[in-house]
Every structure is written in C-alpha cells, then in structure tokens.
C-alpha cells in the first residue's frame, strides 16, 4: 500500500460568490478551469472509470486471450463468471484470509498506534527521532522489507533463534495457521507509522479544556481516556478500519513474496493474488474481473458506511 490510499476527506468548501450577468457563462465564471482539469479528468476516465466499466463487461462475458489481431466471439454469459468465482474454494479461502487479516491487523493497529501516539503527544524529548523512526517502514518498498522479514522469520532465522524451544514448527511463513497472521503482522508493522501520525493529528485536535473539565469532575486518567480521548479520535479509528479493509482487499506483494505465492496451500492467498493467478497466469481474465468487481463494490460499501459513521461522530 502506498500513500495513494489516503483517506477520503470532507473539504472546506471555498466561498462561492454568486455573480450574475457579466462573466457567468455556460461553463461558469472561469471557463479556462475546464481546460485545466481536462487532462486529469481524461486520466481518471482512462485509468479508473473505463476500466471499471470494462471490468464489469469482462465479468459478464466469456473472455480469453486470443492472438493479437484475431477476431473472436466473446459471448454474453450472464452471471456464470460470478458463479464460478463464488463456488471456487480458493477464492472463498482468499476472502476468508482477509477476515483473518482484519481480525489481527485492526485491533493491533488501533491499540499500538493509539498507545504510541499518546506517548508521542506528551513526549518532550526526541519527538522528531521517534516520528521519523516510526514512519521509515511506511516509505520503504515492500519488496525491500520483505527481504529482511524473510531472513528474520525463516526457519533458522533470528526470531526463531531467540525463541529457542518456543519457535513454532512448522515455522512462521510455511505454517498454514501462522502464514496469514505473519502477513498481518508485517502489514501492521509497515503501516503503523502512518496511523500513529493519524492519531497524533487527531489527539492534537482534542480540546485541552475537555481534559481539564474531566479532571475537575473527578475523572481518573482511565476515565478521561474513555470519555475524552477515545471519542476525540473516533474519526481516525473509523479510518483504521476502512484503510485496513482496503489493504486486505489489495494484498499482493506480501503473499506473493513472503509466503511464496499465498502458501502453504493457499492459506495466505489474497483476492488480488487469486486475480493474478486466475486472470493472468491461467488466462481467465473474465473470472478474475468478477473478483475485482466484487472487491470494488465491497470497498465502496465499506467506505460509504465509514463516511456515515465519521459524519455521525462529528
């Protein structure tokens, strides 16, 4: 995941000054604006809107890779591809794996990033050092850090050497019960810095007076944490859930490299990995497109729910 997955935002709308008559035309007061956004709109249309429509089209047709230039019939097959997808145990397992991922990633991200953000918010010394060190994994390529995790978590790796007799057997990345949790741990580690900064920003927006009045009412620190801090950072918490879901839906590099292609036996496969295997390796882009459509719909529903929840919190 990269910074592209930045959260949706509710923007402060610039004041619109109503001006009638001179200047306001069919295109608005500044028709040049249309020209300025045209490249961006064309880009969105070419890279998001059209592929989305094309994905839907693919998912309802029998599509296969034909020789370049050859004209082949691509019959409409209704929901056949969806039926294939939903009855495929590998696909079901991949969606189930996202659930495992979320169950580990979300609480861990919430607890650790809030804890570290609170500590960082009150720290006097070394704030820059800590902020930088927490954020470094986030800016580093997954492929690079996967390399060191492979070394750390291999059968005879440092982690198992330290654990000694407590080391799991089979080891982390080759165990069907531990492979997905290890991926969840990896992603939590890699993205935690982003969420720490998210919570830090949220904490700084909690009015100090609320803590003062809480302590005036006799609240202890735990009570004021529950009554002031948690509600104050609620929008950030909802975002953790949203972004974790998007990350889970998107996982590819980690299962591909860390667990050698979603192994063992698909125990750590993700939907995008399955899309790659089905659509590109096995030449069934129509079935893979159906998985993509299901995922897009899922992500949109979750972000709508998220927006409603955040809106309710304000």
């Amino acid at each position, binding site marked *: *995941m990269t910074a*592209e*997955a*930045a959260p949706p*935002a509710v*923007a402060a709308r*610039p004041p619109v000054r109503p001006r009638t008559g001179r200047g306001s035309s*069919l295109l608005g007061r*500044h*028709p040049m*604006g*249309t020209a*300025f*956004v045209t490249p*961006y709109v064309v880009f*969105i249309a070419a*890279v998001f809107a059209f*592929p*989305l429509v*094309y*994905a839907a089209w693919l998912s309802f047709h029998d599509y296969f890779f034909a020789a370049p230039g050859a004209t082949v019939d691509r019959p409409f097959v209704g929901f056949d591809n969806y039926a294939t997808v939903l009855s495929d145990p590998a696909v079901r397992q991949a969606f189930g794996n996202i659930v495992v991922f979320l169950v580990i990633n979300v609480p861990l991200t919430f607890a*650790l990033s809030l804890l570290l953000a609170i*500590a*960082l918010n009150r720290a006097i010394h*070394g704030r820059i050092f*800590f902020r*930088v*060190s*927490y954020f470094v994994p986030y800016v*580093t*390529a*997954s*492929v*690079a*850090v*996967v*390399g*060191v995790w*492979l070394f750390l978590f291999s059968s005879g790796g*440092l982690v198992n*050497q330290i654990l000694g007799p407590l080391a799991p057997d089979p080891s982390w990345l080759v165990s069907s019960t531990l492979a997905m949790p290890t991926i969840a741990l990896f992603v939590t580690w890699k993205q935690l*810095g982003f969420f720490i900064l998210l919570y830090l*920003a*949220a904490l700084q927006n909690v009015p100090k007076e609320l803590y003062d009045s809480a302590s005036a009412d006799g609240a*202890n*620190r735990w009570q004021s*944490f529950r009554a002031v801090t948690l509600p104050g950072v609620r929008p950030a918490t909802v*975002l953790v859930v*949203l972004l974790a879901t998007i990350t889970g839906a*998107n996982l*590819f590099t980690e299962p*591909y*490299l860390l667990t050698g*292609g979603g192994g063992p036996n698909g125990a750590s496969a993700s939907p*995008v990995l399955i*899309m790659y295997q089905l*659509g590109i390796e096995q030449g069934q*882009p129509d079935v893979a497109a159906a998985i*993509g459509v299901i995922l*897009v719909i899922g992500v949109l529903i979750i972000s709508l729910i998220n927006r409603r929840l955040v809106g309710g919190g304000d």
Partner: protein
Amino acid sequence: MATTTTQTPTVTAAGRGSRLRFPWRMLALLLGAFVFLFPFYYMIIGSLQTEPDPTPAGALPDPGNLTLDNYSDINAQVNLGRTLINSGIFTGGVILGTVVFGALAGYALAQLHFRGRGTVFALALLVQVVPFQLLIIPLYVLITRNYGMADSYLGMILPFAINSTAVIIFRQYFLQLPSEMFDAARIDGASELAIMRWIALPLIRPALLTAVLLTFIGPWNEFLWPFLITKQADLQPLAVALANYISNVSARAANPFGAILAGACVLAAPAVTLFLVFQRRFVTSDIGSGVKG
C-alpha cells in the same frame, strides 16, 4: 494508561506528576523505535555478511564476516544500474505528469469557478478509496492487448500518471492564496495559464516539494503493476527485478539472503534518504490534507 484503573483519586493525582508518567511512556517509545528500526539495521548488517549468520550474535558486526561481495552478486543477477535507471524513468514520468497536470487541476479546483468543479473534486476523493489493484485485470487487458503498451515505459507510467493525493494537496495550498490577487492579475490582462505558472505556482513551492516527495514513493516502491506488464528484464524497475530474484533465482545462490538484503538496501536507500532529508515535508502536510481535507 490502563494501570491507573483501580487507583484512588490521591494516587491518580500523584500519577499526573511527570516523574511517575515518564518511564512507561519513554519505554513504549523506545521499544517502538527499536521494533521499527531494527529490521533496517539488520538489513544492512545482513547485506555485509560473507556467511549469513542468523544467530543473535550475528546481529552485531563481526569484522571477520564482513564483505561487499553480496552487492556484486546481486548486481551480476539483476543489473542494478539498468534497473535503477528504469525505476528512475518510471518514477520521473509519474512525477512529471503529477506536477504538470496535477498542479493545473489543483489550481482550477481551488481558484477557478467552472461548471463541474464539484464533480471533479468528488472524483479525486473517490479514486483514492478505489485502489487500482482491483482494476488490474481490465487495465492489463486494455494496456497490453488493446493499446499495445506491454513492455514500455509509457504503459508502466500510465495508471499512475497523475497522483490524486497530490492533486488534493495542490488544491489545498492554492485555496490558501487570496483570490483577489488573481483577480488583479486578470484585470491586468494576464492569461489564466500565466497567472497559474508565474504567480500561483511560485507561492506554493512547499506544496510542490511535498507533492513530489509523496508522488516519489508510490512508483518507486510499486511492484504489482510493473511486474505485470514488463516481461523484458531490461525494462524492469529494481523492485520487480529484486522480487523476481527473491522468488525464482535465490534458491540456487550461495548466499541468497546476503544478495537479497544487498538488493533491498539499494532499493530502500533512495526513498529512505529522501524521507530523512525532507521528513518535515512528509509529516506535516500529507497526513493532514488526507484526513482533514
């Protein structure tokens, strides 16, 4: 935090004293820093070992076990120079597209009143929640089959060409400029493009830096898309070449972890260096603009 639940009010008051609070907080922060930084340290140490030493003692540099051979090993396998140039072209193309067209769009969204402005802004927000990974199948079919852009830099750059987060950052900064200033320039007869280029853009130079840095880490670290569309090794960015090495070749190498970690260091170094040098630009703006809009 949780330890004060059962305390009486008097103890809680004492707990507010800075001396009692200090240790757990600092301990948590230090432990966190260790967990985040140690793998990077270990990456460097591992890349310099002649023999991979996974024992706890191996985490410390051993003068008898240090070498630069792993770097020449990985270079022999993936041609670091070529792949770094490819990563640079890929990343540079995305940055160029984002700075030129993203800044134009951001300026228009902030300062120009035209029909459909709200829709375009809503689109920019929406595309951030629909990650393009979910669209790889149609994009792959379109770009490699219909447009014939497999194994080309253009095909690599296209899905990333304008970073929507950067568009929103640009808009955010352009919004802070007083529109009266631009009205005055318009009355003086300046064209909209000249106003944007010569008045507005110089005033948001910090945003430009932030947007460039933020845009940099996307394509530099990207794996899936260039992996899909480059089959030719001489076009692959370093992330793809290294990943192929990890998944295919490393099993046959003498010191696979040494070579992998050497490659990882080379891949990580540019992004980490840029981040360390410009860390202020990362932490203040991109997060804030993402969350608060």
